[in-house]
């Protein structure tokens, strides 16, 4: 159906609310994590069992019959670690690690008899007592979360416009178009204090205002879905789990700045997000929520998808514009800022997915409401992708100002396998490593910046005692080095040299002069690079040098890797008790550093050994022992 005006939309929303709210629904998580763990088989099993039991699962039949469950495949529910996840509404029971074998049990016990399947609920051992929480809202992982951006993610079918509408979808757009002037919209977003969620934290309202003030025959809204930080998957989850909210946010932004065209730039690595967005765009056009004369207000807005082709630098505004124009994705100096001269030379606002998804909520519930979450300078919430050596890997949304400790230990459940927390890498390859001492730091733009890290787009990788900080710094540098577009010298050459030095350190060949040069180079690259990629590339090195200098010294001076990761810091010894003097090791040694005679145990010359491990593999008697060098026993 096509909505000719706001009234038609509102009537439909009421109708759909009656159909969906408070109804019995079986939600199966269709996020990437759960799908890879077999959620599809669980979904199909539910289809089969519900049909067999006469509990017909189609939405149409569910209409008007409160007791007939609806089966829905949703977007990401967040707790990816424990997937596949299943939620039973309206009570909000959360089942974890559901396998197709469990489906009969859930239908029988929960749907038919209203009881809980005990072995599938969240449980945690506390002080020797096992605690369990059957309802999602009580589970420690969810308890501290506030869902604004993820308001629909994991509770609606992302491919069904009706479900989005039932949650007041497109009502914010309708309100903006009928009750507010573009300046009112910008004013509300300014008052809300919304800051760019892509990492920089620039006030969104101000960005819009700049673009609004420029006179031009055409303007553009670009949604930046080029989520390139390794270890971040928030935007992907939103685009896959709630695509209409992205489109609605873009349309409101378009109205505010006077644009009638929008582009969503999505990474090529996210085929499912592209598919869902395409479907959503098509449905929105059919409902008259995109295209000409939206809701009879005269406002026109078109949305197109542009797929990236694999270049991290395209997350940078000016590079992203070049890429949409079909060119090499290389950045350009600013000014002129895209708000003045952007896509095809026209004023352009580029907002991150998460930023745009906040907008409908702000319009609907007001700036005051939005400011009631978070801190004075960073209002609202932030989504994070928790990953690494953390217990609850997954997608979370927390109010700004929460401390890292609460985020990692209360929400994230602490470190895996009872290991010790060592550091947290926040903001990906552009961010920094923070230590135990920062655990009580509030998570907001300014506090993180002060500590040398950045908010980034929301990747949060937890590192434990088994992770070598120097090796992690090398890893990030190898990433930014290979993603450097090569346009400006500091980034192109500087990252290369920094990577070389880090490699030398990891290989146990560096000196203290190398360390000094590394630091100096890092500062030059940070100051002199053209775009955000180069400016922030040294952050992991600089923060680890600041907070983990002793670990660098261990590698450089003592040739020791405390985390026992860097292979060059090992030593190979031959156990004289076990050695049968067969000579196999000496024959495979590529540098001929093993010597011996028949009947006498062989010996490795430590000075010549290159730690390749060939002897270790060759020895048939397990006589070769690997010893990690320790400080003092060099």
């Amino acid at each position, binding site marked *: 159906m096509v909505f000719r005006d706001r009234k038609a939309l509102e009537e439909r929303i009421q109708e759909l609310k009656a159909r969906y709210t408070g109804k019995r629904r079986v939600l199966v998580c269709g996020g*990437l*994590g759960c*799908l*890879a*763990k077999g959620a599809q088989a669980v979904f199909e099993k539910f289809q089969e069992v519900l049909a067999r039991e006469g509990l017909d699962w189609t939405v149409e039949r569910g209409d008007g019959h409160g007791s007939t469950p609806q089966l829905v495949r949703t977007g990401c529910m967040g707790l*990816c*670690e424990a*997937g596949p996840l299943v939620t039973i509404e309206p009570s909000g029971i959360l089942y974890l690690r559901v396998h197709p074998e469990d489906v009969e049990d859930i239908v029988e016990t929960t749907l038919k008899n209203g009881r809980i399947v005990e072995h599938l609920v969240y449980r945690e051992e506390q002080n020797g007592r096992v605690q369990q929480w059957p309802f999602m809202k009580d589970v420690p992982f969810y308890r501290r979360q506030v869902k604004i951006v993820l308001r629909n993610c994991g509770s609606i079918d992302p491919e069904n416009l009706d479900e989005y509408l039932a949650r007041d979808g497109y009502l914010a757009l309708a309100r903006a178009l009928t009750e507010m002037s573009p300046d009112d919209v910008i004013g509300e977003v300014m008052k809300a204090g919304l800051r760019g969620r892509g990492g920089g934290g620039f006030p969104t309202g101000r960005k819009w205002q700049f673009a609004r003030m420029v006179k031009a025959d055409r303007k553009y809204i670009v949604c930046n879905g080029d*989520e*390139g*930080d*390794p*270890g*971040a*998957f928030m935007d*992907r989850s939103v685009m896959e789990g709630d695509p209409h909210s992205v489109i609605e946010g873009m349309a409101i932004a378009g109205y505010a700045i006077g644009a009638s065209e929008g582009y969503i730039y999505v990474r*090529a*690595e*996210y*085929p499912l997000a592209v598919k869902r967005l395409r479907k959503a765009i098509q449905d929105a056009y059919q409902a008259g929520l995109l295209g000409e004369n939206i809701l009879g207000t005269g406002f026109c807005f078109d949305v197109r998808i*542009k*797929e*990236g*082709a*694999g*270049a*991290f630098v395209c997350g940078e505004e000016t590079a992203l514009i070049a*890429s*949409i*124009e*079909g*060119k*090499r*994705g*290389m950045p350009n100096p600013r000014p002129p800022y895209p708000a003045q001269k952007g896509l*095809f030379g026209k004023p352009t606002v580029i907002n991150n997915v998460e930023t745009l998804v906040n907008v409908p909520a702000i319009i609907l519930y007001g700036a005051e409401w939005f400011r009631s979450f978070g801190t004075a300078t960073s209002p609202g919430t932030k989504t994070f*992708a928790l*990953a*690494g*050596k953390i217990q609850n*890997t*997954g997608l979370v949304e927390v109010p700004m100002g929460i401390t890292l400790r609460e985020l990692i230990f209360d929400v994230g459940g602490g470190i895996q396998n009872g290991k010790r927390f060592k550091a947290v*890498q926040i903001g*990906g390859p552009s961010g920094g490593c923070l230590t135990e001492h920062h655990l009580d730091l509030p998570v907001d733009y300014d506090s993180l910046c002060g500590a040398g890290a950045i908010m980034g787009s929301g*990747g949060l*990788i937890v*590192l434990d005692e088994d*992770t070598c900080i120097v090796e*992690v710094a090398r*890893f*990030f540098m190898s*990433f930014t080095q290979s*993603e450097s*577009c090569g346009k400006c010298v500091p980034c192109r050459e500087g990252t290369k040299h920094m990577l070389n030095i880090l490699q030398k350190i990891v290989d146990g060949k560096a000196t203290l002069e190398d360390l000094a040069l590394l630091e100096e180079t890092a500062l030059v690259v940070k100051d002199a690079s053209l775009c955000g990629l180069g400016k922030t590339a040294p952050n992991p090195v600089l923060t680890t040098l600041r907070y983990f200098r002793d670990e660098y010294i261990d590698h450089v001076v003592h040739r020791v890797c405390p985390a026992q990761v860097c292979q060059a810091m090992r030593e190979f010894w031959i156990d004289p008790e076990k050695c049968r003097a067969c000579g196999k090791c000496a024959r495979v040694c590529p540098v001929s550093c093993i010597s011996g005679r028949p009947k006498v145990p062989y010996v490795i010359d430590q000075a010549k050994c290159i730690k390749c491990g060939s002897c270790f593999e060759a020895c048939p008697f397990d006589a070769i022992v690997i010893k990690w060098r320790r400080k003092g026993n060099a």
Partner: protein
Amino acid sequence: MEKLEPEVALGRSFEKVNAILEKHGYDSTNLIAILQEIQEEYRYLPEEILTYVATALRVSPAYVYGVATFYAQFSLKPKGKHIIRVCDGTACHVKGSEKVLKAVREYLGLREGENTTPDLLFTVETVACIGACALAPALMVDEEVHGLMDEEKVQKLLESYMEREEGGEASDGLQGQKGA
């Protein structure tokens, strides 16, 4: 493998390139999408086609070549039928993605500097984060994600692909010694 040589490919389906160009309105701002579709068709970007595309879009061949070499997704060399993308994002890296990559390469018998098997069945790439951090270390075969990989799982997974290949189109004689 000779089947994919450009001249043969060109002779056979030049009209496909035309159809793709047509669909995108011969508009050079759609160059990336055009190249993506061409690569989908040929599994790589044959040089002759790049030149043809440049002429059709009225831009220089250098411009098209520049774009084709800038983005990691594009390949100027033939790629395998199945693309294995081993994730080397941060989460996967700290959980041992290097071992997974090594296991994949070893199973396929790839030598250093080689990313595609001689029979053009598999191409191995590393990517920075496929967003499946909860399943680290993870890899993708074509569009399917496989998580929590280790050496053993890699072997089982690739074996299943090999079997499917052998069961399916064994006639093209591309299967080699690696099945065992």
